[in-house]
């Protein structure tokens, strides 16, 4: 099992007294895209937020179990969540570029504000990140414009570029296309497939077609439990669990 | 176990600085309590209930000034609140857009005018309007009623109350305006839907729905009126001694703040300075009482509302 990048082990999570995740065991493989699907409220967003310790920022959030990143438990007391988040980047549901910063500064923000830029050429990093996010050609003449001045789809790719600039090992995406139109979504989907060459990707989506198009592995969650996990092809073509089958055939959702 | 990270240090520093609010409150209370210990030790409860303020015989009683404070603030509310509500209702419910914006700016600008300027205007302008158009006619025809008796001068409790009324209008009006605009349109539509007239909608639904907020606005205005110093000092006539006991609206009076502003530096004895600081303490207590009451009421109302929504 050498190629497992991240792994949840008996993961439980709560908001106050409400249990959001029940005994989740999922492994996320290196240089692959793992999709997490399920109806709203199934805990898929909570799960992905436990992977970079964003979950614990909610006031009443609690959790138990382990998340392993390269076989080290990220909830170990010696792990600094801030440092962890530099290794495990995240892209959110709604594009959220920093409103007061230019496109250039948005991409550079991670490096500038974390103080790790010293030996790096910022211009070079910004250019490379925007290229990887397939945004460079569209904005290369407007780098000084505010990050919020471009379209929603472009903003989302800007946020991806911002995450890439820190050269994380894993990129988490929490329904990255749900606020976008179909054309902009298609671009993001292509990008996700591209990204797995260099990164490990976990993507939450409520769009089953999207999951089947972009992912190598799929986890289906329902009411906080993991119902089925396996290769995307297997989940969509021959689901073992009846609930999974009903969900992917659109019987409920 | 708290680790010494940059984040924890930063949080600790600003948490300590945030204590400035508590420190300000404690410092003020401390100074007033220790500063007035002398007068309370000497006069005891007489200081609150006494009617005579005569440094010559070392007799200090602040009752007339407490009454003066309450009376002027009462006039301010009586006159100012209806006007403020009228303005707020006008701005939100009636005024066309072209009038609404400049009009609400105007009200906010009134809030920005320093109180000493209200005082100056009161002293040289409002005083004569009050004297000629309100006090003289009332005195002539209704002078047999005690509160309208005496010789009107224009520098008296009524003028002080009226200038306070003007000064609380921006506060009360702008907070009420926010409250009224926050009333959801569905409330209005529902009321119109059962055939209510515009006036009925405003009176029974809009005001009713926003009553706790409007109440809060009124209390804020009261707080401002009670603590106001300069404008009152300049127009109230500044009576001292037994004469300061208010009997008529047309008589010079004194409030707690104006007493302090007028006499603080004329103290000849430690006891007298202590008495002024004691007056400050009484003022602080009244003001705290009002502010705390307003605060508790408003937060409780908000909490209940929040619970109902969930």
């Amino acid at each position: 099992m050498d190629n497992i990048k991240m792994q949840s082990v008996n993961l439980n999570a709560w908001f106050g007294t409400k249990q959001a995740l029940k005994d989740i065991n999922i492994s996320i493989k290196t240089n692959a895209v793992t999709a997490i699907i399920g109806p709203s409220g199934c805990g898929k967003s909570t799960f992905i937020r436990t992977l970079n310790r964003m979950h614990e920022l909610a006031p009443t959030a609690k959790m138990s179990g382990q998340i392993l990143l390269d076989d080290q438990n990220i909830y170990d007391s010696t792990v600094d969540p801030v440092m962890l988040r530099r290794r495990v980047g995240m892209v959110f549901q709604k594009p959220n570029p920093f409103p007061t910063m230019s496109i250039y500064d948005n991409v550079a923000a991670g490096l500038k504000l974390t103080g790790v830029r010293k030996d790096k050429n910022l211009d070079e990093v910004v250019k490379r990140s925007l290229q990887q996010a397939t945004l460079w050609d569209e904005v290369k003449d407007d780098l000084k414009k505010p990050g919020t001045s471009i379209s929603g789809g472009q903003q989302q790719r800007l946020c991806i570029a911002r995450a890439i600039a820190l050269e994380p090992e894993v990129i988490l995406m929490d329904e990255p296309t749900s606020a976008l139109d179909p054309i902009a979504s298609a671009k993001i989907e292509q990008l996700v497939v591209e990204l797995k060459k260099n990164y490990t990707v976990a993507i939450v989506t409520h769009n089953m077609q999207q999951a089947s198009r972009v992912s190598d592995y799929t986890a289906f969650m329902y009411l906080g439990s993991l119902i089925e996990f396996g290769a995307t092809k297997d989940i969509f073509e021959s689901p073992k669990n009846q609930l999974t089958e009903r969900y992917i055939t659109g019987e409920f959702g | 176990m708290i680790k010494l990270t940059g984040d924890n240090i930063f949080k600790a520093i600003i948490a300590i600085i945030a204590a400035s609010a508590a420190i300000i409150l404690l410092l003020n209370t401390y100074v007033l309590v220790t500063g007035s210990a002398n007068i309370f030790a000497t006069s005891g409860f007489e200081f609150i209930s006494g009617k005579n303020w005569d440094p010559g015989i070392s007799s200090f009683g602040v009752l007339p000034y407490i009454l003066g404070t309450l009376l002027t603030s009462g006039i301010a509310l009586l006159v100012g609140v209806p006007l403020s509500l009228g303005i707020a209702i006008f701005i939100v419910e009636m005024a066309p857009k072209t009038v609404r914006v400049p009009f609400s700016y105007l009200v906010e600008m009134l809030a920005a005018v320093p109180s000493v300027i209200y005082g100056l205007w009161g002293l040289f302008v409002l005083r004569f309007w009050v004297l000629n158009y309100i006090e003289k006619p009332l005195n002539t025809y209704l002078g047999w009623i005690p509160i309208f008796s005496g010789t009107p001068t224009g520098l008296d409790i009524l003028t002080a109350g009226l200038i306070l009324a003007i000064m609380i209008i921006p506060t009360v009006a702008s907070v009420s305006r926010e409250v009224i605009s926050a009333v959801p349109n569905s409330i209005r539509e529902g009321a119109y839907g059962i055939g209510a007239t515009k006036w009925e909608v405003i009176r029974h639904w809009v005001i009713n729905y926003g009553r706790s907020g409007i109440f809060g606005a009124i209390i804020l205005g009261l707080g401002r009126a009670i603590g106001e110093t300069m404008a009152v000092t300049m127009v109230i006539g500044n009576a001292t001694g037994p004469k300061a006991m208010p009997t008529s609206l047309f008589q010079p009076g004194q409030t707690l703040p104006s007493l302090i502003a007028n006499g603080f530096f004329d103290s000849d004895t430690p006891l007298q300075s202590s008495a002024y600081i004691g007056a400050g303490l009484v003022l602080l207590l009244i003001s705290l009482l009002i502010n705390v009451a307003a605060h508790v009421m408003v937060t409780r109302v908000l909490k209940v509302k929040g619970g109902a929504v969930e």
Partner: protein
Amino acid sequence: MRGIPAINLQFLTGDGLRYGIGPAIQGTLILIGLTSAIGIPIGIMTGVYLAEYGTNKYASWIRSINDILTGFPSIIVGITAYSLIVVGLTGTFSPIAGAVALAFIMIPIIARTTEESLKLVPNSVREASMALGIHRWRTIISVILPSAKSGLITGTILAVARIAGETAPIMLTILGNTYFFQGLGKAMDALPLRIFASSRSHLQVEQTQAWGAALVLILIVLALNIGVRLASRGRYKR
């Protein structure tokens, strides 16, 4: 306005002997500067704490006390600064004592407007920054405060306008006189004090001086207010 005839160059720059208000204008500007130096940093940091870490019991206490302080009678902070600094520490009336009294008024106002402006910054901005592995303190200073810039500036300027016209607290702390600035440890004049003192005079020339000073003060205060409104309106349009 009755102040207009009073205004001329000599009036604006002349000292008290010539019934000018030069010392008063100078004093008001000095007070604004000193008070801002104390009040703005403390007020903003308090507001930052309340907005960013304000979910605990301590913070809700501080918030309540702040609310109460904004309705505080201003003459009381005058008594406090007088007793603590004029009598207790330095033994003289001074701009420092005045600035401390005014800062007591300014801090709660700025703390509240800062908290409100920071709460308008969407949470998604905070999340974005945290997810990049940016430290929280860095997030606040470099991402959140700049995002709330216009609100912070507005709140600060309105607080400055408010303290510029305060009279009662400085009456007890800087005393007022008719001379230009004599040093940080000496009594000083200010516009509101000049208005108050001159208005009590029976001399026509001093009453005129009061009106002139009032006109200057109100122009300063209204200019700050109107400036802020125009600036913030321009920003919202963009």
